[in-house]
Each structure stands twice: as C-alpha cells, then as structure tokens.
C-alpha cells in the first residue's frame, strides 16, 4: 500500500504539482513479468520467431514452393546455393519452408485463439453474470459441444465445406472456446458477488455496461494466462490434423506437416524432421514459460 499522507510535507508537494500518474495492476504485472527471467527470455524468443517467420520468406533466396531443379533430392546445407538448412526430398529449401510453416502455425494458433477468446469470454461473462436460465442454457450447450469428438467434427466440416484454410481456424476456435467459457464463467461468478459490482449497479449501470466495464477487464488476467497456454495447444492440434491429412494442403505447409514429411524420411534424412521439430518445440516451450510467468505476475495474492 502506498498511501500518501495528506498532511505530510510530501503530500503538500504533491498538491502543488500536477496530477500524479498511478500504476495500474497491469503495469505492476508487466514489471513483475519482466523481472521473471525465463518469461522475459521466452517473450523475446517468441517475438523474434514471429518477426522472422513473417519477414523471412520475403528475404530468402528461395520461396517455400520453389523447387531447385538442380537438386531434386534432399541435400545437406549448402551456403553457396542459399540452402542454409538444405532442401527436402523434392528439392525445396528447408529454411524457407520452416519459416513459412511457422507463419502458418503461429497464425493458426493466434487466430484460432482469438476466435476462442471472443466467443469464450462473451459466453462465459454473460452466463456467469446474468445467471439463472441463461446460464443453464449456455452451459448445457457447452457440455453438449464437449461431447462431440473433435476429429469427427472437423471431418464433417471438411465434407460440408471442402478443405479450406479459414475453416481450420474456425473449427479449432469453435472447440477451444469451450474451456475458455467455463473459466471465464467461474471467474465471473466470484466477481459478481464483489461489492464493486453492487456499487456499479447502484450507480445506475446496466448489465451490459457492467459486463464490459467491470467484469471483462477483471477476468482478463486469468484469460491472458489461458491464452498463452491455448496457443501452443492449438498449434499442436493443427499439427495433429495436418498429420491426419485434414489440415493444410501442399504446397502450403505448417510445422505439423513438415514434421509429418520429415518423419517419413527419418532414417535417411533426420535433418528434415529435426529442424522443424526444434522450431516447434522451442515455440511451445516459450509459450508455456510465458504462461507460467504471466500467472505469477498476475497472481492476485500479491496485490
């Protein structure tokens, strides 16, 4: 607590000066996150990976779908030709493919999580705050959705709409929001009984205003932690679907597909498995460390 004493000389000085800037809980959490070495390094690695995946494919001499007709076979790294990580079995540059795959994987991770976040927070906050029949209805729907097997759900979508890149985001997002909704609902239920919610109602706030102004900002901390844990989950899910042949289509690629391809050549050419797998593992590790760091930084016990 950093109460400022009204009658102290310090207080008088403040009175004379202009407005004092406060330090919000977010700023506090940010400070604690930066102090956490593992989380901080993870954050830097992730940002770097993200930038490299987006920018990399434009600056590399080879594109992800370009076949080096001089070497239509797996070739070890060759700096003179610009194949820094070598090529795959059909002569495409592995680095370009790994970076492009990273772009797709991260995009699926982030977009699908955003879809999950939007639906999950809305449904969870409304169910938790409004309660009663609305709560019952929404949560039974969530239970129902849980019961549908994911692969089955995705196959049906594929059959109905054909294989589609965007569909993948939607399919994964439509599954991932369920847990998010449950978490947000639980948090909202505890928040709903806080006195500041009653105070907001007594000062004339409508239900929508209270949800937007008070509930959502206060569940965001927990949601952030869950988001950082959902992104790697989604990346894994995408790899799994691609592995089954339900995901991205050639020549487009993702880490999951690269790993799938590499696995087939494990014995003759382990490089094609190890490189994308290493990228993906590092990313997943970093997201998990970041999630842990966020959880510590946002821990309400520290407030």
């Amino acid at each position, binding site marked *: 607590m*950093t109460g400022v004493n009204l009658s102290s000389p310090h207080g008088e000085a403040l009175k004379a000066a202009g407005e004092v800037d406060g330090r919000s809980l977010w700023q506090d959490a940010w400070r604690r996150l930066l102090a956490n070495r593992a989380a901080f390094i993870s954050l830097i690695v992730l940002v770097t990976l993200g930038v490299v995946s987006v920018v990399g494919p434009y600056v590399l001499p080879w594109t992800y779908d370009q076949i080096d007709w001089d070497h239509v076979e797996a070739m070890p790294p060759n700096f003179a030709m610009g194949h820094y990580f070598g090529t795959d079995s059909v002569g495409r540059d592995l680095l370009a493919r790994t970076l492009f795959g990273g772009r797709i994987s991260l995009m699926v991770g982030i977009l699908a999580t955003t879809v999950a976040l939007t639906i999950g927070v809305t449904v969870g906050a409304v169910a938790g705050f409004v309660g009663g029949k609305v709560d019952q209805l929404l949560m039974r729907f969530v239970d129902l959705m849980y019961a549908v097997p994911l692969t089955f759900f995705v196959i049906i979508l594929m059959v109905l709409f054909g294989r589609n890149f965007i569909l993948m985001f939607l399919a994964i997002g439509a599954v991932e929001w369920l847990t998010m909704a449950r978490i947000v609902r639980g948090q909202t239920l505890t928040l709903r009984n806080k006195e500041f919610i009653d105070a907001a109602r007594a000062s004339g706030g409508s239900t929508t205003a209270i949800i937007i102004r008070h509930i959502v900002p206060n569940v965001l901390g927990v949601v952030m932690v869950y988001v950082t844990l959902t992104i790697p989950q989604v990346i894994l899910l995408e790899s799994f679907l691609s592995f089954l042949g339900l995901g991205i289509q050639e020549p487009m690629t993702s880490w999951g597909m690269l790993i799938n391809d590499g696995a087939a050549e494990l014995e003759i050419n382990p490089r094609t498995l190890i490189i994308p797998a290493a990228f993906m593992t590092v990313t997943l590790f970093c997201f998990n460390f970041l999630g842990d760091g966020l959880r510590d930084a946002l821990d309400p016990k*520290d407030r």
Partner: protein
Amino acid sequence: MTVLDIRDLTVRFATHDGEVAAVSNVSLSIAKGECLGIVGESGSGKSQTFLAAMGLLAPNGRATGEVNFSGMNLLTAGEKALNSVRGNKVSMIFQDPMTSLTPHMKVGRQLAEVLVRHRGLSAADARAQSIAMLKRVQIPEAERRFEAYPHELSGGLRQRVMIAMALLCAPELIIADEPTTALDVTVQAQILDLIRIAKDETNAAIVLITHDLGVVAGLADRVAVMYAGRIVEVGDVRQIFKAPQHPYTKGLLACTPRLDDETGGALLTIPGQPPNLQRLPPGCAFNPRCAYVMERCLRERPALLPDAAGGLSACFLTNAQGAP
C-alpha cells in the same frame, strides 16, 4: 515473578520492495497473574511481536533480540524445544478459531490429543479431562459437543473450544490475539467474561492483543500502546485511560466513539493516514500526524523512558528527554 521477558525484539520481513521492519526494538515483560493489553492499529506490529516470540513468523520473517521464557531464549531455541513450550506452557488464542482448529477432526479428539501429547495421559483420562474443561468454559451439552466437528459449532462455541484448549495444560502464559474481533457483541461479552474468570482462576499471565480500547479497559492490568512497530507508551491501565501521556494514545482515546458519550459532537481525529512501514519518516514515526510536533521530532527518535504519570512513554514532551 516475570513469566515472559522480551528484550530488544526486532522483526524484519523480506518483501518484493526490500526489507521491512514490522517490529523495532520492543522490550516488554509480563508477570505471573498479570494481564497485559497490547493496543495498536493494523501494521503496528502488535501481533507480529508475539508471533515472533513464539517462533511462528512467516517464512520471509526474521527476528532478532531475546525472548526469555522459563529459562531459555525462545528465539534461539530449536523447533523441538519450541514445540514443548507451545500448546503446553504457552497457549495461543486467535481471532478466527476456524483456522486454528483442524476441520476434519472432531473437537474432542483435538482437545484430548493435547493432553496425550504434552501430559502423557491415557485416552480415557484425556477424554474425561477434556469434557470437564468444556464444561468449565460453559459449553452446554459438553459430551455431545465433544463429538462434533468444528464446522458444526457456532463462532462463539468454537472460540470457547479454543479457550478450553488453551487452558487444558494449565499454561503459564496465554496469548490472546484479537480473541473477540470476529464475534458478535453479545457473544463477545460472554467470551470476555470467560477470559476474566480464567484469569482469576488460573493465575496465568495473559497477553491480550486487540485494537478495541474497550476490551482492554475491562480486562487488562497494564497496557502497551504500539505504533509503527514500536511501543510508544506503557503503563497501568487506569493511568493510561485517565492520563494518557503520548500524543498518539491521547488521540486514540479521543477519536474512539463511546457508547456513554451523550454529547454527539464531531469526534476529535488523528489526521493523516496510518504509517507506511516502508516509508517511515525520519525521527519519531508519529511526527506527520502529531499535533504537538516539534522540530526535534523530525530529526531524533524519542526513546521509551519514564514519564511524570508513572509509566513509560516515547515522546520528548512527556519523558525525561524533554527537559532541556
């Protein structure tokens, strides 16, 4: 005869923003049969003083000084020695009995175990003595309550069970930390009565830690007032209430609304905010809120010395340091 003698006790806590002294250079002694009231607001260090004395500090806390009890220094005594003292020669009663009773164990078993462990009684004897003790603290249907779980009892009954547990081993010292704060007024009156009876019957020394001046006025023989981790005034209960010396004690008495006050005018107040232990002012910690603050108070910290009223106080105006 002195039961507990605290010398120069300092308690520091390691926190995110550096080290904080919760208790600074506190010296106190309690005699047999005496009830010492410790008064202070939150953050005054009143609870931490005695938690430290009993070796019950949070892991990030560190205590220095001396706490002499039955021939040993509790601060340097090992965990084994402390365990033989706690619950046996010293009993503690806390504000919330629900957190001090194990929820999944019947209260009877918790009581009897104390006797088995510290007094080496047989199970049957322990049971008989525990029920007798429950009756002594006026718990109706003691035999039935012996078989109850803590959550089946009301707040008042739970606090009675805690007092029964505290009295079981005939302790030399009872430390009661805000024993009635969580209770309703009518139940508080019952519990205070019970402590009063226990005090008369057992001759144990009692430390009564509270923020409620009324509770102290009714029970204590001597009172110590704490502010920002230090004792600012100690004295006989009648003297403290009739002729408080330290400006903080005066302020505290003046700003407490009283049931017997018929005038109903504006209350006198102590201005400002409670002290922030991380940013105490130099000199006397009370100086930003004190009505009598002098230039000297901003530089020097007054020591706790005898004053004209016969007690000790830490203020340049009231004790021997004040004379030029």
